């Protein structure tokens, strides 16, 4: 992928951090010794991305390089290495779909198909209205609740074709549902409810112990 393909065609002329982010940068830089301030490159890239519609323009990369006394190419190396940094504009809802083995076994292909059906986009594409972007990513670390789509900062879990369709509709309507399992389970508890020691209740357990002691 050449550099032209990697970065946005239209780049803003300049980039400046907001006053709130300037304060945050101060807090971040205070964590590192001054001669090692290059360590702050990832938090600063993240700040820039959050400030700038979820993507990092080259002007921001140059600004960060200047602040951290780094060569511009070093900042670009970091920004282009991590898929979490977007160097091109993405939609309002940035969907990161996990396609790694556990999610695939649990039906991530259905989720992909649903997104393609409803929004008409494949991985790396954005809808014409600029609302949705899709990127297939590697393991998001929530395999127990596979398959997963990460929408901006939130995980939506236990998806299938229909629930994905409902999720997309809610997002399009501007009413994002609560993050987590769309099947309604708590955290990572078993989808089918408790499967072992189901008959036991805490109280009974106590009496049993008492009985043994007696």
């Amino acid at each position, binding site marked *: *992928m*050449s*550099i032209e393909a990697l970065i946005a065609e239209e780049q803003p002329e300049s980039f400046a951090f907001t006053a709130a982010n300037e304060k945050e940068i101060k807090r971040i830089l205070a964590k590192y010794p001054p001669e090692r301030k290059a360590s702050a490159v990832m938090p600063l890239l993240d700040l820039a991305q959050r400030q700038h519609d979820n993507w990092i323009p080259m002007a921001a990369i140059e600004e960060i390089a200047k602040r951290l006394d780094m060569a511009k*190419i070093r900042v670009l190396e970091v920004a*282009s290495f991590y898929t979490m940094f977007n160097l091109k504009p993405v939609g309002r809802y940035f969907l990161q779909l996990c396609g790694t083995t556990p999610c695939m076994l649990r039906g991530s292909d259905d989720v992909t198909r649903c997104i393609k059906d409803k929004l008409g986009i494949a991985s790396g594409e954005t809808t014409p209205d600029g609302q949705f972007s899709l990127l297939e990513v590697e393991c998001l670390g929530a395999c127990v609740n596979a398959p997963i789509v990460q929408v901006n900062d939130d995980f939506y879990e236990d998806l299938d074709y229909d629930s994905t369709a409902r999720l997309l509709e809610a997002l399009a309507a501007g009413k994002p549902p609560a993050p987590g399992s769309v099947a309604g389970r708590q955290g990572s508890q078993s989808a089918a409810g408790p499967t072992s020691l189901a008959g036991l209740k805490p109280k009974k357990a106590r009496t049993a112990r008492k009985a043994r002691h007696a």
Partner: protein
Amino acid sequence: MPKLTVNGIEVEVEAGATVLQACEEAGFEIPRFCYHDRLSIAGNCRMCLVDMERAPKPIASCAMPAADGMAIDTQSERVKKAREGVMEFLLANHPLDCPICDQGGECDLQDQAMAFGGDASRYTENKRAVDEKHMGPLIKTVMTRCIHCTRCVRFATEVAGVPDLGAIGRGETMEITTYLEKTLASELSANVIDLCPVGALTSQPYAFVSRPWELNKVESVDVMDAQGSNIRIDARGGQVLRVLPRLNEVVNEEWISDKARYAIDGLRRQRLDQPYLRGSDGRLHPASWPEALEALRAAIKKARPAGMGAVIGDQLDAESIFAVKTLMDKLGSPHLDCRQDGAKLDGKRRASYLFNSTIAGIDEADALLIIGSNPRLEAPVMNARIRRRWLNSDIKIAHIGPEMDLTYPSEWLGEEAELLAGIADGSHPFAQLLQQAERPMLILGSGALRRADGAAILGKARQIAEQTGMTGKGWNGFNVLHNAASRVAGLDIGAVPSKGGMAVAEMLSAARAGSLKLLWLLGADELDLAGLEKCFTVYQGHHGDAGAHAADLVLPAAAWTEKNGLYVNFEGRVQQGLRAVFPPGEAREDWAIIRALAELLGVNLGFDSLDELRQMLCASHPQFAELDEITPAKWGKFGSTARLKGGVVEAGLTEFYMSCAISRASQTMAACRKAAGQPDAAQAAE
């Protein structure tokens, strides 16, 4: 000093050495791509895997420090398999385009695939393809061939000091590029071509020109600057096709500047290949050698010794300088000068014009003051050494002269000459830093020495050296940085005005006034030669540059690639350049022209061949007999104690790419200049 065994052979290596170096020490070659002696360790190609006793898997020998009692096996079946495996992975995405690749025949990947790889490929899938990158007019990129060793990235960042190169993306989509594909802005950029172990970065001007086995290789010395970088000249069929660096730890290590490497296409353009004589119509007409030499003889006879002067150019070999000096002495003319830039160095005290600390001495210096010089442009390879010293130690560096980017931080003290007085009397804060340093050093450039008060500056610099303890106890930190390859040889031989003689500037004004009847320029082009109508001007050299245009008689001579000659670098190191090709047309070697002229004049110079000339030179200046050696110079009084004149100190050079007749004729250098954002030569001349 850890002791370890490699394949049962016990070796002792220096502390901090790697297993790879220990294996080399024991005589076993370890294949490698990313590892390079002069760069930081990356450990990403995995080609150097070896077996270590009690290690569960093969180790990357380049990144593993050698430790006491290690038992290394480089010949086990597992190592062989590991190498084959790594090679197979490297070749998975490497195109099979060796027949059209310029690296073919001198390719590490090709050679190591033959030596350590499997016999056939099992890979049938599509290979990845990568867009070419723009890295300037010197570096041609075929990035599909890249194996991501990152040698080029590390060179640009560490040695050249221009962190423009990097690897973007990750995994299979990783690509080496410059930031937004801008030109690699370094005077040493083309060294990445030598470093590249595959054909990803190849030489743009040399693209598809020749195969390595077709070339005639000759060892020589670079004359584009005064460092005397060791080079290898590759020629074929009477043409110099390329120049590569040759390893010399104490001079250029294994780097050369872009000018040394690429100005050679200037050797094919604007060459003087026959004598020319200015006719009564004011134009230069071709002449034969007998006519030309007869015209010169007549002019010398007419001018009388007192009315003739000679100027030595910046790239003349030592033998020719000695021949001119001998001829001028025998004729009785005192007007001879080798200091084209007008440096106020009288050549009497050898320590006053040498880089006394030697280039290798930079590795010990702990404070450095640069006066009137831009080492990045004047000796880029040496500048990389200063940079390395800065990276590895807390050396304090400051400069007096224009503000400049030297690739390492240097405190800018200002550009006024008076600052020197402050440092000499200890009142300037940097003087204390120099005094506290154990091995302080100063570099005095021609920007300071060519000033009208150059002798006073030289005196002040000597005072600084003595006040801050730069001299004595096996250390001499007083350094003069010359820009001309011929300068130290000229001063060693004494090619300076003798009693009653005129220096270059005086000769030129006398020639304009008409009191100097004959001016003999031996490859001297860097002068203002306007208004010399009253004087019979003779240009002996190899290019139709400023000198030839102003001349009434042009004598075609050999360029440095076309003759055997001795050159003395700014350290005072005598090195030999060998002939790679023959001079074009009627052009002759300088010493032979001088010898033929002496014959006509009826003067016996005492030599009939280059060998005899060398013997004479060594007899009168014994240091020339010590090839590749430095004869240390004795310290003493030099320079003047006159007051400084004030005003600003300039840098010796402000222009890197086009600084001599050869580089000014080079199209490659013109392209580099343009890429660097400087106006092209035609505009500059206006």
